[in-house]
Every structure is written in C-alpha cells, then in structure tokens.
C-alpha cells in the first residue's frame, strides 16, 4: 500500500497507473462493450470512421468492426504482454538466484547460457521460434519470454551476489537455515525490487514484440491483435489510413502507459531499495 502511495505521488506513476487501469478495465469488459466475435463480418467493407454510429471507427477490408477489434485487441496485447513478462521474470529470477547463490561452476555455466541468449537478438529468436513451432497464443508468449529472461537473470544474480555477503545472511547460515530457505526467504525478497522495476519495461517490450510478430503474420490468426490490424491496414495505407492509425494509437497509448508506470515504480522503489 505504501508503494502504491509513493507511486501515485510521482506524476509519471499517476498517469501510467491511470492509463493501465483504464486498459485493464477495457480488456476485462471487452465482451460486454462489444459482444460477439470481433472478427465476424459485421457490415459493409471499408466504412470510413465517424460516419456510422453502429461502427464508430469504421470497418476494415472485409467489413469487420474496427472498434471491436481494438477493444478485444487490448485483451490480447495485455494478456500476452503480462504473461510473457511474468514468464521471463520467473525464469530470470530462478536462474539468477541459483547462479548468484550457488556460485562456482554452476554460476559460470548458467551465465554462459545467459550470454548465449543475450547475444541472439530477442526478436529474431521469437521470430524463429514461432515460425518453427507455429503461431498460437501460448507459443507467442513463450517465444517472447525466451528472448527476455536474460536481463532479469543478470540483474537478479548481481543483486544476490551483493546480498549474500550481508550480515543477516551470514547469521542465517550460522543458525543452520537450509540454503534453499536462505535463498527464497532472506535473499529473494530483497533482490526483487530492481527486478520488478525492470519488469514493466519487459511488459512494454513484450507488447511491442507481440505486435511486431502479428504484423509479420506470425501471431495467432484466430484472435484479433493490434499488430495484425496494422498489417492488414498497411496494404491500403494510402486510401484508408485510419485502419492502421487507430490500432497504432492504441499500441502507443499502452506502451507509453506501461513505461510511465515503470518510471513511477522505479522512483517509488528508489527510497526503499537499500532497506534490509
């Protein structure tokens, strides 16, 4: 709760939180706001926006409602972004914690694996992964997480290396706590804040990667995503630019919201990081 208070006190945090809350509400209530399959052919093709009250943002090449696509696209973008970031951070935390806490050969080995993943551009990795396995939401999530876990792993390891030399860790060792207990109960909670600050950036990157994958036709074709909407609009950019602009705006607002939130979070966490 204190963290939330600190967060809202920073202007970035307040705006970011506002945007994200609105987006989450839209995502949750998308089926209520626009009932039915957003991909169904609802009206005449290529209605311009703001002309028909039934389709406020117009329709696309096949006569699908653009507004419905954007509302339901919020679901896909946010869920893929959050799931990918969660997966990346979970993997990163585990690997970083193990490497930092165990040290020695295990550390060396794990860090070389991290190096390997950091060397490969994460987008190329996702692209290759999805094109080999086939496009569906879980695969896309995994593909994005695969390229994003290395950074939190490094950060966690660095934190753990510094924390494990602290006195309270030494005393925990002396009183005979199990190493796993030390790792998860003493070290992890204190190594977490900077990783959490990083997580917002990972979410933003994951949303963008998902959009880029869909743009290239590697998203799940059975759900509507902003990236695929932009890709379809691209072919008629000169005659109906609105088809690409609206999902583009949605994407920008989301990513800006997540970034502002992450800025605010970093600032709010700033004062607390050194506390034991």
């Amino acid at each position, binding site marked *: 709760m204190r963290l939330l208070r600190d967060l809202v006190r920073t202007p970035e945090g307040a705006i970011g939180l506002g945007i994200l809350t609105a987006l989450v509400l839209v995502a949750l209530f998308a089926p209520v706001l626009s009932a039915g399959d957003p991909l169904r052919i609802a009206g005449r093709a290529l209605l311009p926006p703001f002309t028909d009250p039934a389709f406020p943002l117009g329709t696309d090449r*096949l006569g699908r409602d653009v507004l419905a696509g954007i509302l339901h696209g919020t679901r896909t973008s946010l869920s893929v972004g959050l799931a990918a970031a969660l997966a990346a951070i979970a993997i990163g935390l585990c690997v970083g914690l193990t490497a930092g806490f165990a040290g020695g050969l295990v550390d060396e080995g794990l860090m070389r694996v991290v190096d390997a993943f950091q060397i490969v551009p994460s987008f190329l990795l996702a692209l290759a992964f999805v*094109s080999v396995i086939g*496009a569906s939401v879980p695969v896309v999530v995994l593909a994005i997480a695969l390229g994003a876990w290395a950074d939190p792993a490094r950060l966690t390891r660095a934190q753990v290396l510094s924390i494990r030399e602290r006195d309270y860790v030494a005393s925990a060792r002396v009183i005979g706590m199990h190493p796993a207990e030390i790792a998860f109960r003493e070290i992890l909670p204190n190594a977490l804040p900077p990783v959490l600050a990083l997580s917002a950036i990972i979410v933003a990157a994951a949303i963008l990667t998902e959009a880029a994958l869909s743009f290239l036709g590697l998203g799940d*074709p059975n759900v509507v995503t902003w990236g695929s909407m932009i890709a379809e609009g691209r*072919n008629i950019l000169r*005659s109906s630019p609105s088809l690409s602009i609206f999902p583009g705006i949605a994407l920008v607002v989301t990513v800006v919201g997540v970034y502002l939130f992450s800025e605010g979070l970093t600032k709010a966490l700033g004062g607390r990081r050194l506390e034991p």
Partner: protein
Amino acid sequence: MTIATLSRRTLLQAGGALLASTALPTATLAQAGSRLIVAADSEPKNLNPAIVASNGVFFIASKVVEPLAEASFDGKDGLAPRLATSWEGSADGKSVTFKLREGVKWHDGKPFTSADVAYSALSIWKPLQNLGRLVFANLEAVETPDATTAVFKFSKPTPLQLIRNALPVVSSVVPKHLYEGTDIATNPANVKLVGTGPFKLTEYKPGEYYRLTKNADYWGKGEPKLDEIIFRVLPDRAGAGAALEAEEIQLAAFSAVPLTDLARISKVPGLKVISKGYEALTYQLVVEINHRRKELADLKVRQAIAHAIDKNFVVDTIFLGYAAASTGPVPKNAPEFYDASVPTYAFDTAKANALLDEAGYKKGANGTRFSLKLRPAPYFNETKQFGDYLRQALAAVGIDAQLINADSAAHQKAVYTDHDFDLAIGPPVFRGDPAISTTILVRSGIPAGVPFSNQGGYENKELDGIIAKAAETVDTATRTELYKQFQKIVATDLPLINVAEWGFITVARDTVQNVSNNPRWAVSNWSDTALKS
C-alpha cells in the same frame, strides 16, 4: 568537417547535393529514348525458361529466349507462330511435325536450326523441365530431316491439342552449341541467357536491375520497337505504385500494385489499369479438402460448405471485382474446355445448415457442430483474406474453423506432405490444358510430397478413368468431351470447392503501347511494345 563548423548553410548544401545525387540517375533513366522501365519483384536464381517454366522466369527471360509458338487472342488454335511457323500432328497421335522459321540467328551469331529444337526437347524439356516432364513424357526421338524441320516421335499417342496448349509454356528453345556436353544445371548460359528473342540480356546487377537491349538481327521485321528494357527490382509491393506515380517506372505487371490501391491509381492522370493480357495465366481460388476427415468425407458436408460460401462477396470485397466466381475446375478463360452446365451451389446459409443437420452433425450447446483446421496459402493477400472470410462463413453454419498461418515452406509441407489439414486454401494455376493443371488436384495415386496436387486422399475411380483416357485421346472433339464430363463429376462430387478465378493486373503509363495484346502478354516477348514520346 568538424561539428563546430557545421552551419545551417553547409547542412542545407550537403542535403541538396545528396538529393541531387539520388535524383540524377532516375531523371536520366526516364528521359532516354525508347527505354521501358518495368518493376520486377523477384530475381530467379536460374533464368533459363527451358528448365524452369514459371512466370517469374518468363517475365524476364521470354524477351530473350523464345518458344516455338506464343499464345494469341485471334491466331489459329489460339497460337501465334514464333520459332515454328507451322505444326501438324499425325493421325495416330505418335508424331508431330514442326516447320521452323528460316534465317533466325542466336544472339552470338550462330544460326538457329532444327538441331537446337531436338536438343532442347530431348535433353532439357523432357528430363529437366517442371512441365515438360508431363507433356513430353512419351517423347522418344526428334528427327531432323533438314535444318528447318523437326519431327517429334512419341512412344504412346499424345494429343496434339495438349501439345498446342502447352507450346507457349514448355517450348523455350536454347542453343545446343552452348549446352551440349556441359552440365546443363550449372551452365553459365542459365544466367547469361543466349536466345533468339528480340532483346539480349546485357547486364544484371543483383538487387538492382536487369538490362535488356535491342537485338538488331531479330527475325521480326521492324522489331523490336524498344531500344532497351530495364527490369528494376522492387521487392516491396507497396513501392511499385509510388514508383509509377513518380514516373520512375512505366509499367508494373503481375499485380505489383495491390488491388486495394487500384481505385486510387486509376485516377492518377497518365496511368492506366489493365486487367487484360493474363487470360492464359488464370489462377483459381480453391478450397482443398482432406477427405481423410470423417465429416468431410460426407458429400452433404462438402455441399454445405459450398453453400456457405458467398462467392459474390469473395469477388466483390476480397478481389474488389477483379475476379470471377467459379463454377467448376476449368475456368471461363479456357472456352475450349469450359462447361457452364454443371451443378452450382448458390449462397444459402439455411440450406447449408439443413444439409449439415441431415448429415447428422447437430449443433452442440455452444452452437458449433465440429472443429476444423483451416490452412490458407500464404502466397497472396487474397488467399489469406479468403481464409479470414471462410472462417466466418463456416462459423455462420456452426463449423468452427481454426486458422493456421504458416510461411510457404511450412504450408506446403503441412498440406502436401504431412496432410496436416482439414481444409486448405490454394491458388493453383490453370495452364491452358486440364491435363497439365487442374486434373492433378483430383486424380488419385499421387505420392505424398508433390506440391499443388491431390493430397486430400480423394479417390474416384470413374474420374481417374476419364483423366487417364483423356491423356491419350488424340481426337480433339472426343478429348474435349471427356474434359466436360470431368468438370461435371468434380462439380457434383466436390473433391474440392472452386470459389473464384482471377488474373493479374497491369498498371502502365499511357505512353506504353501495345500492352496486353495477347493472353500471356506479361510473359511474352514484347517485340511490338513501343513507347509514344
């Protein structure tokens, strides 16, 4: 220049110089006498049309290497003579005699003779060429009684009708003196083409352009009319329209300008949109069906799917009117074979629902009857959009189709090798004769892995019999009648569903003359194409 001295003026000057340096070459290109600049979207590795009989190769190579005859709107048998001046089949269908043009020279100065035709046929078309393998499967020998006569001898009757229809595509003649005794597949002449055509391939810069220059010794009187053709490589489809408007190119064939841009482009002064000139290159939009799936093996379900598709929507909205609704496996652009009197399936959701109920697949609690895997081919925007449409059309009759997108290689492997599909959307090409195109989509007994063939496990002995009989029926009328029966059976039994058929669109500056004056214009030799100054 250091950063400190970088004033606004120097920056502007440098910027101006930079602009001028990029503008200069295009300006000079556009001004030169009769030089036609054309958009090319691919750069084939092997440019030899005798080996690779595909449109991507023909687009460039057909100006350099000529076939025995070219397709024609008004010529006899739909052909215009090129390297052959006449052709005649024997009554038993076992030999065809070609009279060849006299006084034709290769680009390197050597004379063109019947030996070149015999060599091309026996050493390249029959063993190596993708389509020649089928057409010349029974070719035994080519006799050359004199320099301008070539007699093709077949071991089994081969219909002259088939050979005629295939001539423009399969009969590109290459020089024997450059190929004999070499490894044909790696011969340098596959890239540095030597032919008899109106243009010589003089320069190729990978990633930039192909330059073709006038062949002064061309056999056609007063031809070619152009001095040069430049094929500018523009891989981005969105770029061709802008390049036409900026007068950087004068012609974009093969729908390089997307359909959705045509309405706008057609209003630009000085540009015209031409949909003629692709009649012999008709693509068919086909729903391929995996008959191994129990539901789809039921004729009623296939009929229901056919009734669920609104062909008018497909033509008007997906193809924006640049297509025609199909009735069966032979397109209307092949009037020699086309038969309109086949069963048709009007768009009727209620009837589709009724048929599915009759077949015993009632709607479940969630409104769906069963689920299908739908794989649209990724080659065209339109095939992908039709995939999106078909999913919705099937949802309307309670069939849940799950789309699977894949790149070309993965799609071909999944559909034609692994049979990992229930419905697939394919764009097969009609190649002028059913024997070398549409029949392969329904004939049984084709091994797995042959792309663009019947891999849906469909088997119909009667249909197989007709196809086999037509392949060796020499009499044209009887053979045509067999293909009419073939169309009836396919339209009745629905081994696949033909939805629409379409050709490509050419966009050209109105200064370009004699555009689209034959049914394969984009891949013909352009000897009469001219530029009005």
